C-alpha cells in the first residue's frame, strides 16, 4: 500500500447561520495515498467543497484533525501553514482565480516569489511549466486575453509552481465546455502520472470518473462510500457514451 499523504480524523465543520448551526461535515475519516487520483463526488451542499478546504488547509475544522504528510495541521503556526500551502499543495479552482493584473507568466511565478526563488530561476521554471501545459506562446498574455480553457491551463501550471506533493482541484471543469473540460482532465491526469503528484478533485463532472483511481462519495457531510476504479469502469461507459 502506498504512503498516506493526507488523513482526516473525525473532521467536523460547523457554520453559523444566524442562530442556526449548520453541520457541513459530520465526522469524516479519509486516507489519501501518495500519487493517487482521487475524486470527491457529491451533490452541491453535500460538504465536498468544505472537505476540500479542510484538506487544503484553507479553513480550520471545528473538531477533528487533518494530517498532511504526517503533520497535524491544527498544531501549525500561520507561518508553517503558509509554507505548507506554498510548497506542498497546489490549488486549482473552478473560477481559475488568476490575478487579472498579472500575465500568465507572472501568475505562474507568484508562488515561486513566495518560495524565495530569484527572478532568473522563476522565469525559467515558469516558462517550462507554461510549455508543459501547452501555453508557451501565451506567456505574456493577461488572463483577460485568454480563453477559459487557457486560463485553467495557467492555473494548472501555477499549481505546480513549487513542485507540490498534492494538487487540489475544486470543480476544475465546471466553467468549461465538454471538450475543453476533457482536455483539462487529461492534462491533470498526465501530470498526476508523470510527476507522481497526488490529485484530489472535488467534482460532480462524470468525465472525471474516467481517470480517477478512487472515488469518494460525500453525502450529508459524511463519506457515503469509496469506490475503486475497477468497480466503476462499466458505469462510466454508459454515462459518457464511450
Amino acid at each position: 500500500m502506498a504512503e498516506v499523504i493526507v488523513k482526516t480524523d473525525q473532521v467536523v465543520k460547523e457554520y453559523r447561520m444566524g442562530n442556526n448551526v449548520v453541520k457541513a461535515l459530520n465526522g469524516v475519516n479519509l486516507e489519501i495515498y501518495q500519487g493517487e487520483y482521487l475524486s470527491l463526488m457529491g451533490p452541491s451542499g453535500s460538504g465536498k467543497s468544505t472537505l476540500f478546504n479542510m484538506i487544503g488547509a484553507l479553513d480550520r475544522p471545528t473538531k477533528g484533525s487533518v494530517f498532511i504528510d504526517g503533520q497535524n495541521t491544527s498544531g501549525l503556526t500561520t507561518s508553517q501553514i503558509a509554507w505548507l500551502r506554498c510548497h506542498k499543495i497546489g490549488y486549482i479552482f473552478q473560477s481559475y482565480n488568476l490575478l487579472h493584473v498579472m500575465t500568465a507568466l507572472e501568475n505562474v511565478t507568484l508562488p515561486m516569489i513566495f518560495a524565495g526563488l530569484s527572478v532568473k530561476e522563476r522565469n525559467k521554471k515558469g516558462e517550462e511549466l507554461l510549455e508543459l501545459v501547452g501555453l508557451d506562446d501565451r506567456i505574456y498574455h493577461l488572463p483577460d486575453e485568454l480563453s477559459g480553457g487557457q486560463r485553467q491551463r495557467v492555473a494548472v501550471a501555477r499549481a505546480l509552481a513549487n513542485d507540490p506533493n498534492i494538487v487540489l482541484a475544486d470543480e476544475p471543469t465546471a466553467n468549461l465546455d465538454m471538450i475543453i473540460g476533457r482536455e483539462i482532465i487529461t492534462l491533470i491526469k498526465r501530470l498526476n502520472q508523470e510527476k507522481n503528484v497526488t490529485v484530489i478533485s472535488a467534482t460532480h463532472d462524470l468525465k472525471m470518473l474516467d481517470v480517477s483511481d478512487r472515488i469518494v462519495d460525500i453525502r450529508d457531510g459524511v463519506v457515503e462510500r469509496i469506490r475503486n476504479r475497477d468497480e466503476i469502469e462499466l458505469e462510466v461507459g454508459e454515462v459518457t457514451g464511450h
Partner: protein
Amino acid sequence: MANQNRGTIGQQIELPFSESVRISYQSLMLRFGRSIITTAGITLGIAFLVFVVISNEISTSIVGGSASEQLMDLGEEQETGISTKDKWLIIMSLIVCVVGITNSMLMSVTERFREIGTMKCLGALDHFVVILFLLESGFQGFAGALVGALIGFVASLLMSLANFGLDIFMDFPLLSVLLWILGGSVLGMLLAVFGAAFPAWRAAKLPPAEAMRTEV
C-alpha cells in the same frame, strides 16, 4: 522532485520589501481605471480642504498685512482672523475628507477579498498581504492628495484674485500655503492608509476559503 522535504514543515520566508513595492506598484498601474476612481475621492476631499484653508490664509494675510488699510471696508468679518463660519467650514471639509477617503479605500479593498484569499493559497503570509495593500493605498493616497492640494490651491488663488485683485501678492503667505499643500498631501496619504488598514488586516486574517467565499 515532488517528494523533497518529505515529512518536514518549514517556516515561510519573508519577502524583501522591494518585491512588495514592485507588486503593489504594478497592481496600481494595471488597475489604472479603478485606481483613478478611488483616487478621485481622495483628490476631491483634499482639494476642498486645501481650498478652504488657503483661501482663509490669503484673506487673513490681506486683512492683517500691509494691505489691510485699503481693505478696511471689506474686512469687517475677517478682522478677527478665522471666523466661526470658516472654522466650521474647515471642520466640515475635514470630515468629508475622512469619510470619503475611508469609504473609497474600504470599497477598493473589499472588492479584492478573493484576490487576497488566492494569494494566501499560494503561500502569502498575512502581513505580506497587509503591507501590499498599505503600500498601494499609500501611493494612491499621496498622488491623489497632491493633485487635490494643487487643485485646491489654484482654485483658492483664483477666487482670492477675483475677490481682492492683485493685492493678494503684496503680502502673500507663501510659506503657510506651501505647508498646507504638503500637509494636505500627507494627510490624504495617511487617511488612505488608515482606511485601507482595517479591511486589509481583516481579509488577511481570514482563512483563505472564507476570504474567497466573501461576496461584496
